[in-house]
């Protein structure tokens, strides 16, 4: 079977692994890595971290790169399943919607924060209220549907919602669900940017900016016997190639989110283990559909037909990815295979649509992108593929912060080649990109009339089957109206040193070190 065929029927995990790593690699690790040997206590895991944390307070920070450093220190109310991101119990032992606008959480007993403060209903209420009111909190939008939080028992919290919101369990498995010690918050003026106190498996030791973040084992952790490390040390190395070299040299044990072009480097290093797995990280072209040319659905569709996604994955991701036909990867619980069929590669159709749109002579797309090596490579391929259907495109490049703001805030350019890093609950992904007033809808343009209602439907019930159906409708609306041009999901590519056992990648692409232990 050819690789093309594999992709068309959707990759199985094994195929993805085989494809992604090839036979030359010394070892392959899947979700069940290390299961055959018995975990052992002890040792400090050294991780090459890709960015300095924006803050170690979950409410005041904002970068997606923080999570991998926050998860070890903060337990969340809900957690997510590594493979599907379905919410599962965490600090909340169970939860139920007593009616669509009331969410009741039953909390785990016997949990304490690192400073000895008891974890209870009051603590949860304090945390959620703070996320909604603290001036520097970045979580107000996450909890927008929460009207009030009441401690309805010593270990029971009731959330009254302003509208049905089944996405909340997912949201509470992310930043908003990270529980911070109320005692520490009160003592430090409401935020703990540099002195985190959570209820997680590891307690904070020190953080030196752009250098090192150190945490040590929390022996009082409620699952202490399932955590094997004495501590975790993050060496902050934003230059990913340098981070990878630090693992090859044995200075660190883990490097994560390595660009696919570094795959040969990992393969040459005999002592490393390669880990890959699907993620929700979607490389895509954002459209500004408020004005020409992308106010014309035919042009938006033409791009979707013109890009050969299989080729793109092979050429730019070295196979460490899969084609994207919507904003969810094929392994996601809400993925809809029918929607995926909407835009198979069809240059003839693209040409016909462009002809119909009757673009002016010498028309050229003004796209915006980034200056890093990977982005440039992607741009070259997109320019080439668009040229094949007779569409000229030009990219203006700059740094990520600069160009994202230029497109999303200052409304420059027709489209932006960037990525969507994903959210634990897909309703957030869709709401944040395809609502009339959301930041990621660059033109703040009108969305299809049925979309807001369809989005609301995805939050009505917690029943996975019904939600899947509701999402299928949302995805269909987004893709039939071609509000975006999704191109590829970039898979996680991690390099592990020889000591590391029990590491599992996850669909969110933000590594957790729960079951990790060190050998020797």
């Amino acid at each position, binding site marked *: 079977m050819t690789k093309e065929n594999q992709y068309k029927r959707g990759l199985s995990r094994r195929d993805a692994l085989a494809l992604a790593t090839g036979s030359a690699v010394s070892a392959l690790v899947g979700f069940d890595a290390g299961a055959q040997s018995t975990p052992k206590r002890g040792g400090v895991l050294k991780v090459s971290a890709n960015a300095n944390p924006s*803050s170690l307070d979950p409410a005041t920070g904002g970068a997606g790169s923080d999570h991998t450093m926050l998860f070890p220190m903060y337990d969340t109310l809900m957690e997510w399943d590594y493979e599907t991101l379905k919410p599962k119990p965490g600090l909340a032992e169970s939860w139920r919607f007593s009616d669509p606008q009331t969410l009741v959480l039953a909390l785990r007993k016997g949990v304490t924060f690192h400073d000895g403060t008891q974890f209870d209903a009051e603590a949860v209420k304090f945390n959620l209220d703070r996320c909604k009111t603290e001036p520097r909190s*970045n979580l107000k939008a996450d909890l927008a549907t929460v009207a009030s939080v009441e401690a309805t028992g010593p270990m029971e919290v009731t959330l009254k919602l302003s509208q049905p919101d089944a996405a909340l369990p997912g949201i509470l498995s992310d930043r908003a669900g990270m529980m911070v010690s109320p005692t520490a918050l009160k003592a430090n003026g409401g935020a703990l940017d*540099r002195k985190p106190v959570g209820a997680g498996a590891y307690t904070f030791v020190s953080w030196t900016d752009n250098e090192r973040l150190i945490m040590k084992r929390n022996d009082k952790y409620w699952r202490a016997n399932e955590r094997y490390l004495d501590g975790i040390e993050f060496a902050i190395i934003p230059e990913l190639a340098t981070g990878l070299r630090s693992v090859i*040299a044995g200075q660190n044990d883990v490097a994560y989110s390595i660009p696919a072009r570094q795959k040969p480097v990992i393969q040459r290093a005999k002592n490393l283990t390669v880990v890959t797995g699907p993620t929700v990280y979607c490389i895509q072209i954002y459209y500004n559909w408020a004005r020409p040319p992308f106010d014309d659905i035919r042009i938006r569709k033409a791009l979707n037909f013109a890009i050969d996604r299989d080729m793109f994955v092979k050429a730019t991701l070295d196979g460490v990815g899969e084609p994207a036909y919507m904003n969810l990867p094929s392994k996601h619980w809400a993925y809809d295979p029918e929607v995926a069929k909407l835009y198979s590669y069809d240059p003839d159709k693209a040409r016909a649509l462009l002809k119909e749109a009757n673009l002016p002579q010498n028309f050229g797309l003004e796209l915006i992108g980034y200056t890093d090596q990977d982005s440039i490579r992607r741009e070259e391929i997109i320019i080439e593929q668009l040229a094949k259907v007779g569409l000229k495109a030009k990219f203006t490049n700059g740094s990520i912060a600069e160009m994202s703001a230029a497109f999303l805030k200052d409304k420059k350019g027709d489209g932006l080649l960037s990525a969507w890093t994903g959210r634990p609950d897909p309703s957030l992904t869709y709401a944040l990109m395809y609502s009339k007033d959301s930041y990621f809808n660059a033109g703040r343009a009108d969305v299809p009339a049925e979309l807001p209602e369809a989005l609301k439907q995805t939050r009505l019930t917690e029943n996975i089957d019904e939600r899947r159906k509701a999402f299928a409708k949302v995805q269909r609306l987004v893709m039939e109206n071609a509000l975006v041009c999704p191109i590829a999901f970039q898979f996680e590519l991690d390099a592990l040193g020889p000591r590391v056992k029990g590491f599992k990648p996850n669909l969110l692409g933000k590594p957790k070190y729960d079951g990790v232990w060190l050998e020797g």
Partner: protein
Amino acid sequence: MGSHGALKVVGRRLLQAAPVIVLATFIVFALLKLLPGDVAVTLAGDNASEERIAEIRRVYGLDRPFLAQYGAWLWNALHFDLSRSLLSGEQVLTSILRCFPNTLLIVGMALTLALATGIPLGVAAATRPDSFIDRTVMAIASLGIAVPNFWLAMILVSVFALKWNLFPATGTTAFSKSPTDAIYHATLPALALAAGGMAEVARQVRGSLLDILSSQHVRTLHAKGLSPQIILWKHGLKNVGVNLLTVTSLLANRMLAATVVVEAVFAIPGMGNLIVHAAIQRDFPVVQGVVLAMVIVVILVNLIADLLCAVVDPRVGR
């Protein structure tokens, strides 16, 4: 030069320093504000609404007029308060004091290496012009100038760190914690940085020494019957001194700038690292603080070079 002359040099330099500092920090501040990109967007996080970004601007005072923001910064800086990083909340002065020793160690080692190898090479070449030694030294020097230091850095890492495991590939240890370990970590970065400097020093020493050795007064010295050794060491090198000091100060300043790249390759938390991250995220208090520190260092280096020049050549200070 008497103490009076030295005071005059110091006084003049310090007077010049004030406008340079204000101008440099103002230009950098203006550039940061002129460039697209906004720290408020970074601060607001991944899923920010426009209201949230506007709110952040209010909370952090980013909505004030440009000059008011710069004025506030300058006023605080005059009171030795460099304020805090917008992103990490750390005192900027703390960050600088933490990062600067790392950079200083690399630059210091690189400069020492460059002088220790560059001067003998230059002398060897100048005393035997057009010989095999001269041509070899000049070839090495051309190579040293042509090779970019980030490339050399990566070659050094792959050979000495990854292949032979002689030196660490990344990271650093604070000099105050363990001087030997700090030097061990700084060796490869210093080597990468020193190559260009060594070449530059060798060329300059060779050039000015050749000039002097072929000058009229050296011819007179020869005629008087002085030995070539005395002519070279006493009369030749002394006259190279001023040139060498000037090159060294320029080199020191250039190496400080080059650490931006070398620190990235070796993941060294120094000044270069600090300013790059701050600039990318428009964390202007940090950028301003680093620029201020760098300007002061450059002014100090130049001042020391001037004073030393005046000592070596009394004509300079007058």
